[in-house]
């Protein structure tokens, strides 16, 4: 190859004139032709130098200047950005906006209004409240005051109230041996009010106490495909089916979170230990303590373009005074956050152990893929806290992200009970919330 052409001008005159000839009638062909020829003649007549050639080309262009307009598509994208339409939808009008999703797994597509303010007390206080309903008739109302960075990030507190009306929560019976065919459902209407206060003594570490009060009502499930839980299981099997007292919860927690980016971690770890005491009201029908240990570790490989994510969680419940744990407050296994090859709420019991391993790799900057395997079980006796007789699944997933924050996760998981596909708008693992209600 060579560079032998030295064309300074990039002339466009000839093609322009061809267009004009086409537009005008045949009687004007000659005029156009002569003009087309005359122009270069005129141009070259004065362009007997390189500089003249450039000047001629400029003068030629000066004849056909027009506004440098963007295409329709570009104008639309520009307007979208400059008018901040995305931000407006996100921020809403006067603090009001639309909230999508966020109900319990299996609750169906939900939406509703949300009022959101993060500019109160000079930006130190966040307030939000929302009301949502799903196509399946599930409802959720919540209210939150949050001060996550109080006293120069040394203190934090939160008040959170939520009311759920979930009309068809699955229940398969107690224990790890519950049958898939035993699927029933129940309606739960609960209201909880939680308060949390904590300190951050050092970077990454949070220590705090929390308290909450929970009101619960149960009813027959409304999914016509399945029998209602109260028709299939007795109160002896589904403890709490007959007595549904309120609960007072007192707890403490410690969290050490040094993930590099909580929205889409590629390195670091997130460790949570939470200890709560539940006491029913009125009367000590139920009293138990619960230890929740949730550990996530992200091991980066190849400059964080590959990540091995390991997650383990156990929930151990200690009933006191010979009482039991109502089934609707028992830990559950199954769903898009833990045992992904199984339906939500597939297993209930007092204790739980789940481990997850993911290998993620970056396909391009907006998408990571993952291969994963999950193992877990529920169990009644603490002696069964081991890795034997665990349910298992495996699968693959896509994690779509913007600026490394996952906004959509699609996981497909396979188990001996079939396969499940999950569309989630969060990152998997590590978003354990410290609340009283079992249903977030």
């Amino acid at each position, binding site marked *: *190859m060579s560079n032998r052409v030295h064309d300074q001008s990039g002339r466009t005159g000839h093609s322009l004139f061809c267009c004009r000839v086409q537009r005008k009638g045949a009687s004007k062909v000659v005029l156009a032709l002569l003009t087309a020829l005359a122009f270069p003649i005129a141009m070259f007549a004065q362009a007997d130098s390189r500089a003249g*050639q450039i000047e001629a080309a400029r003068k030629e262009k000066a004849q056909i200047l027009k506004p440098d307009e963007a295409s329709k598509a570009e104008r639309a994208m520009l307007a979208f950005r400059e008018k901040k339409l995305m931000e407006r939808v996100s921020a809403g009008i006067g603090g009001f906006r639309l909230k999508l999703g966020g109900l319990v797994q299996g609750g169906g597509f939900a939406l509703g209004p949300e009022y959101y303010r993060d500019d109160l007390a000079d930006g130190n206080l966040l307030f939000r409240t929302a009301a949502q309903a799903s196509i399946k008739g599930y409802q959720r109302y919540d209210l939150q005051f949050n001060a996550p960075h109080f006293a120069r990030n040394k203190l934090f507190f939160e008040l959170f109230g939520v009311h759920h009306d979930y009309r068809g929560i699955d229940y398969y019976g107690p224990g790890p041996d519950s049958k898939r065919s035993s699927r029933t459902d129940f309606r739960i209407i609960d209201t909880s009010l939680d308060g949390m206060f904590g300190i951050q003594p050092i970077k990454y570490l949070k220590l705090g106490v929390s308290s909450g009060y929970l009101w619960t009502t149960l009813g027959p499930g409304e999914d016509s495909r399945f029998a209602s839980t109260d028709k299939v299981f007795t109160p002896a099997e589904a403890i709490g089916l007959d007595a549904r007292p309120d609960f007072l919860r007192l707890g403490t927690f410690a969290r050490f979170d040094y993930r590099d980016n909580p929205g889409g971690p590629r390195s670091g770890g997130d460790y949570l230990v939470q200890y709560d005491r539940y006491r029913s009201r009125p009367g000590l029908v139920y009293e138990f303590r619960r230890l929740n240990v949730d550990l996530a570790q992200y091991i980066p490989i190849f400059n964080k373009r590959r990540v091995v994510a390991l997650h383990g969680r156990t929930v151990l419940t200690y009933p006191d005074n010979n009482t039991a744990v109502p089934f609707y407050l028992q830990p559950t296994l199954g769903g898009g956050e833990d045992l992904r090859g199984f339906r939500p709420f597939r297993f209930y019991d007092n204790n739980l152990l789940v481990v997850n391993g993911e290998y993620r790799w970056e396909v*391009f900057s907006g998408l990571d893929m993952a291969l994963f395997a999950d193992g877990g079980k529920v169990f009644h006796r603490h002696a069964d806290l081991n890795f034997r007789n665990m349910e298992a699944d495996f699968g693959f997933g896509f994690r779509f992200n913007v600026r490394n924050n996952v906004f959509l996760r699609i996981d497909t998981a396979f188990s001996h009970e079939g396969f499940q596909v999950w569309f989630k708008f969060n990152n998997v693992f590590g978003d354990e919330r410290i609340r009283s209600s079992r249903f977030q």
Partner: protein
Amino acid sequence: MEPQRSFIHKAVGFTLLLIPFLSVSMTARKFYDDDPLKQEPPPLRADKVEQRRISDAYDLFSNTLSKRGERATVKKPIPARAINTLGEVPDNSWFTNRHYKQQLSIEELMRGPGDQNAPDTSGPLTVVSAKTEGVTPGFLMEDARGRRYNVKFDPLKNPEMATSADVIVSKFFYALGYNVPENYIFTFSRGQLRIAPTAKLKTKVGKRRPMTERDLTEILLKAPKLPDGRYRSVASFYLKGKNVGEFRYYGTRSDDPNDIVPHEHRRDLRGLRVFCAWLGHDDSRAINTLDMLVEENGVQFVKHHLIDFGATLGSDSYRPNSPASGNVYWFAWSSAAAEFFSLGLDVPRWMRAHYPKLPAVGRFEAEVFDPEKWVPFYPSPAFDNCFPDDAFWAAKQVMAFSDEEIRALVKTGQYTDRRAEDWIVQCLIKRRDKIGKAYFAKVLPLDRFEVRDGRLTFDDLAVKHKFSGPRDYAVQWSQFDNNTEQKTPLAGETGLSVPRAVQDAAEGEYFAANLNAGDKQKTVTVYLRKMAGQLQVVGVDRTW
């Protein structure tokens, strides 16, 4: 109808008759008397240029999903334009030959586009508005003398990373020849700032409201503090003229009479690829450019600038750059497919790159860096059209920076950690050498031709920079017909000594010397012209 048709026939016939004459008159000579042009003629008045914005998202998607502009291919190369007959870019509104043409002193290099406009802190510094565009916090400020600056900060976890990069790289680009703003490392205390009564802030939903002390505090909370409580920033002096929007890396501005060469064919933009690779400027997209309508010598015209260098030298402005940056486009079907189907087992070399644990550096390195494989964040038509001669033009300018000059320029970033400065310097030196080695091998890298003492002299840049040992050159002298471009070999004239026939040539005669160093694919043809009794080098052609 009949007389009209007859008239048309006659007129067409007359026109056709003109064509042979016209073709003679239109036959462009290879060289004009004013070749090689050192400077483009003064611009025309550009009074119809209006401000317009480019959509960043549109530019990203359109360049990623389609091929914008006119594309050259290996089979169908399109030579660069906006160059003179030597293959150099004449001084123009995009580019001014600086360090390569006439070596700048260390002081001149460090001064860059200017050092007389640092913010005047003798009085209050007035915040005029908050910066809401872009990813880094900042504000628009007026100093005591009413001069305006864009003030930007480092990310909290990476003090000095973005601010140093912004200053250093602006000076490199200035020395290379581009129009850039004056950037200053600027430290101030909170007490020096006051908010103008008219200061506005654009909320995240696009509403403008008065700016408050709280807003300023919010911005400063995102900026790292110096041990003495002050803040370090980069203050970018406002460019002169009227902002008329960004330029694209393809096409031309339809409202600018001086913008006559499609940008994808401009050598100064094709070669920019090499400079960006050297300096780790993968964020060299359209939104980081700026066209300003300026007036010089009584003429208003568009001056084209590169701006915003906070995402260079391993920085991504608000965080360290991704290791993928510069190595793969943000999205490309081929690399995405390879990753997708290999389950991530295909591990490219860049993923194994080592980066220092220096917060001020981000992710910048030289070991894995491969200038030929370097890519910007998304495809750029001008960069895609960068051919070996374009890259050679750029590489020789990169190689013109000595180790000492590089160190001096890096010093302007005012790193407090000497290790960070050393790392950047060493990386730039190694990356410079890789660029020279790669692109001087693509063509026969002969440059700075002259006729001296009866010999044709030149620099063999590969030899000069020790990428190649001394070598012999095969030369064939020819007489050259400037109108027909025919070469008539001068028998027996195969040395670097200028043949007698050439020395004794008549005024206005042209000659060509074709050189190769063993590889006949890689040749350089040097054109000489006798003018005013002197032999003058008027043109250089390269093949590869």
